[in-house]
């Protein structure tokens, strides 16, 4: 893998800084009652941005609920993304095919199988594409994630399982999820597994780029365990002080992926400028989000079937009458 050019490092920094700032804004918006809930990712920017940056246009990313950083790299409109957390539409309002970025998946683990199926389909179509699926270390306990990795191994599906081991699944520490290192789980499926420093964006990028390239070339799946840390709460409904000590969090703050990349770039003018840019973009995002039209009740009937069965059409009609 060729290492990244300086302008690419800066691009990564911009993306990560923007991710961080939107994350904070989303938490604030929730406190202000503008979002119903939000799962912040602060601390995991390198893992998300670094891995997504390795994707090509034709690749497909399957996120869980915490991958706003990936959404940003994929160019998803954040109004359409955040309206999921505003309670306007489950899964988000963006077009998954416009950016090859799947809907927000809130049920832990089950989307891993969709990534594998998509990758099998891409391979049937002749290859040259890869899927990446994101989930946490907690998700590795679910049967679906096992079945997904097993299918991927058997069908040599072009898919990268990208595990953000952020040490916690709500209040449950990783030591309660598995008695083995997560990256070792790949041995059960016959493909490579590796553990990387998930707060080092360059390491993340390099490992992911290599795994994706192998997948596109027909070399099969890879499991990447990115060691990182969720610095904030599990979600805005969560109070992490109930289950972890500040002393545990502190060392991870020193590993803040943004600080680490900034130190590498070592250009204070640039970082200062990014802060401004980002503020501006977030202001704009906020305005657009808050002025976006709210969901209309009738819309909930819209997309369930290609054509609504008679009973459903009647129900929609009933609702229309209530609301007119």
């Amino acid at each position, binding site marked *: 893998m060729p290492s990244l050019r300086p302008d690419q490092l800066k691009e990564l920094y911009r993306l990560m800084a923007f991710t961080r700032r939107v994350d904070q804004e989303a938490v604030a918006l929730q406190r202000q009652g503008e979002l119903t809930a939000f799962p912040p990712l602060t601390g995991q920017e390198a893992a998300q941005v670094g891995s997504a940056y390795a994707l090509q246009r034709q690749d497909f990313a399957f996120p869980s609920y915490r991958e706003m950083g990936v959404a940003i790299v994929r160019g998803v409109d954040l109004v359409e993304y955040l309206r999921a957390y505003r309670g306007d*539409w489950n899964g988000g309002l963006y077009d*998954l095919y416009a950016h090859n970025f799947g809907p927000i998946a809130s*049920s832990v683990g089950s989307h891993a199988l969709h990534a594998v199926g998509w990758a*099998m389909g891409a391979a049937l179509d002749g290859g040259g594409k890869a899927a990446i699926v994101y989930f946490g270390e907690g998700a590795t306990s679910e*049967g679906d994630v096992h079945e997904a990795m097993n299918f991927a191994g058997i069908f040599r599906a072009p898919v990268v399982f990208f595990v953000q081991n952020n040490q916690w699944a709500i209040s449950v520490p990783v030591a309660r999820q598995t008695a083995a290192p997560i990256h070792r789980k790949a041995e059960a499926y016959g493909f490579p597994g590796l553990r990387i420093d998930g707060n080092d964006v360059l390491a993340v990028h390099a490992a992911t780029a290599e795994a994706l390239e192998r997948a596109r070339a027909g070399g099969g799946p890879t499991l990447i365990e990115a060691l990182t840390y969720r610095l904030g709460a599990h979600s805005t409904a969560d109070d992490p002080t109930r289950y972890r000590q500040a002393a545990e969090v502190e060392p991870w703050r020193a590993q803040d992926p943004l600080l680490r990349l900034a130190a590498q770039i070592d250009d204070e003018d640039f970082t200062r400028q990014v802060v401004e840019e980002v503020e501006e973009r977030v202001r704009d995002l906020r305005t657009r989000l808050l002025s976006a039209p709210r969901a209309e009740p009738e819309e909930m009937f819209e997309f369930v079937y290609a054509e609504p069965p008679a009973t459903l059409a009647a129900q929609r009609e009933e609702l229309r009458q209530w609301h007119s």
Partner: protein
Amino acid sequence: MAQLTLVQALNEALRHELREDPRTLVFGEDVGRLGGVFRVTDGLQEEFGERRVFDTPLAESAIVGSAIGLALAGWRPVCEIQFDGFSYPALDQVITNLAKYRGRTRGRAALPVTIRIPSGGGIGGPEHHGESPETYYAHTAGLKVVAPSGPAEGYQLLRAAIRDPDPVIFLEPKSRYWTKEEVDAAAAGRLGQARIVREGTHATLIAWGAMTARCLQAAEAAAEDGVELEVVDCRSLVPLDVDTLSASVRKTGRAVVVHEAPLTAGFGAEISARLMETIFRDLKAPVLRVTGYDIPYPAAAVEAAYLPDLDRILTAVQKVLDY
């Protein structure tokens, strides 16, 4: 036109769709080399190759989950779950994802997935091989649920299910697999229409899948006593053709719904409730249900006592007639 068993008719339907649409895939446990434990996929791997007809590892959730992913990549998966009782490991994928994906993506990701499930009892199978899971699916909004009653229906409905843009749960009545019937390979099916299988005037029997034939037998037996029963085959539970059902019962004034699944919260309850809601004034008697009992599907030696039989059906008919 040919005389085909239900197994052969379904095989023909799959073959037809595999030929017509190169994006159609068939997969599941033992569907490839073996051709399925019931031989429904017999010869398909030979004809269409291992790329399009393949065996999967033994994992039902993965079968459905990967079908979703394949559909997202533009394929048209037809997957098999080997038996009714083994469809449950995939229920989460079905409820959480298959049924919701179209909505969740605002219609962008249609999932034209067909899940074939040999269902129902009556063949002396071991535990978990005789269940009728239709309620679980019918209650899950976003799915279509189809239950053919014989070869001709099976052929047409399976082709329609595969072509349908929405996910379809296709429940094959395994006790009817070896019944023969004329099948018209040209006839195109449509989902969502019930069928009057026999006309009658005194009461309506409503069924689907294997119980349709049993209701026909009951109607024949009743006819000997001068009772003319109308028999309606629902064919599809979702969408349910309430119009055909209620038109029949409006005419006869009486109805008995027959199904293999346990009574409580079985799909018969939905039909009963719907009939009451739509044609209450025309009902001369309560809609009755003749169903499996509220117990796990029993062992082979006693399954005949569990399944609705002519006696139980005719007794219910007598009750609604005497009401």
